[in-house]
């Protein structure tokens, strides 16, 4: 292939990518439209909890499954082996105890329910019609959306949420939840697989 043609091809590809990327990040509606194309996500998660009291963050590892519209399975392998299931509007947590998983009743705490419920909304790109958060686009590389709580209940424990997107349009690469007292939680998603079929039973029970 002649050099000039190769260069032209690369330029066209770059332009197409820029158009694609700039198009989907134009406004919250475009973002939601793009993200609606993501029907399922499977990813490894690293959670880093920054606390003022600790010199280094507390690190947790696990695996994350999402199925549109609002099903989540969040499986922590360390330091506490546990599984959070969000399905059909119900949030459940199971913790490993000796020989098997048992249900953890503390997931009924309002703050935990709110966070888990919000995460599935964020993965759907529901920033414009989100009654709990106001979303503002922060252009740049990486592209981000900053969410600030609307209601006092959430303001009581979350100051701001920063959602960072990967180079693949519509795919979240990290979520930072900024709380009070110098505290924040960073969730990093690695090895993301999109739109791979996930059996519904994985969102219904721990097995």
């Amino acid at each position: 292939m002649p050099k000039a043609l190769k260069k032209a091809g690369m330029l066209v590809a770059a332009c197409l990518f820029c158009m694609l990327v700039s198009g989907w990040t134009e406004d919250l509606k475009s973002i939601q439209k793009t993200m609606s194309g993501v029907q399922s996500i499977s990813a490894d998660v690293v959670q880093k909890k920054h606390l003022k009291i600790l010199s280094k963050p507390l690190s947790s590892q696990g695996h994350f499954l999402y199925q549109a519209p609002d099903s989540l399975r969040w499986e922590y392998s360390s330091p506490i082996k546990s599984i959070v299931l969000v399905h059909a509007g119900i949030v459940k947590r199971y913790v490993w105890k000796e020989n098997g998983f048992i249900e953890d009743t503390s997931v009924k705490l309002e703050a935990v329910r709110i966070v888990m419920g919000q995460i599935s909304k964020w993965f759907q790109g529901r920033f414009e019609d989100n009654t709990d958060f106001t979303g503002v686009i922060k252009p740049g590389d990486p592209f981000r959306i900053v969410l600030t709580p609307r209601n006092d209940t959430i303001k009581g424990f979350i100051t701001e949420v920063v959602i960072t997107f990967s180079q693949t349009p519509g795919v979240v690469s990290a979520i930072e939840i900024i709380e009070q007292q110098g505290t924040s939680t960073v969730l990093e998603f690695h090895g993301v697989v999109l739109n791979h079929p996930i059996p519904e039973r994985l969102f219904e029970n721990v097995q």
Partner: protein
Amino acid sequence: MRGYLYIATIFCGLALVHCAHPMPHPQDTATLNPEATMRCLSIYPSTPVRAVHKIDATLPYNGYASFIGVTELFPLANRIKVVLLSVEGVVLFDAEFQGSETKINIALSPLNHEDFIQGLLGDIRFLFLPPTGRVTASQVREDGHCVCAWSDGVRKTEIQTGPKAVIRARPGPKRLAREAVLDHPRPDGLFSEMSLTVKGVGGYTLTFELLETEKPSD
């Protein structure tokens, strides 16, 4: 309301205990042995330390909950900071205690309930700070381990050293309010495993597994 009380019960403490072999009651008339007293007090950290625990709570009505607890101890200053997090990292409770003063930084409902705060404070003091009041008994047993007792006029606290240290709080001669078993002692004054059983209506058991430690800077 019942659900609220149930969840509040979940959080009515932070401490460690674990039932082991029975502990003989030191007699108030027993001779005080300073060496035994020192050995009983050696189960508590003597220098500042910060600990991260996995906390499992076994609750009434077959309830069960897991948390992450961060505790910062300044024994000489009688100061403790405590942060309770959900497994997902949501800060549920953040407070500092020094002497009789309590400063609550974060307390999400229902952990802002006064009963919870007092229960937590009581559990933490029970586990990490030496008893208040005067020593009423301290002796070295035939097996070489020590038993000691303190009384503040209202409550009696007993300590037994051994392969597993045991702490018991008694509000009356025959009554047991709290019992802690501390296992696998470490050089920094902490124990790798602890369990605390709080007796009575709405009683619960908390087990603590030490995940990591740090030395506080101040």
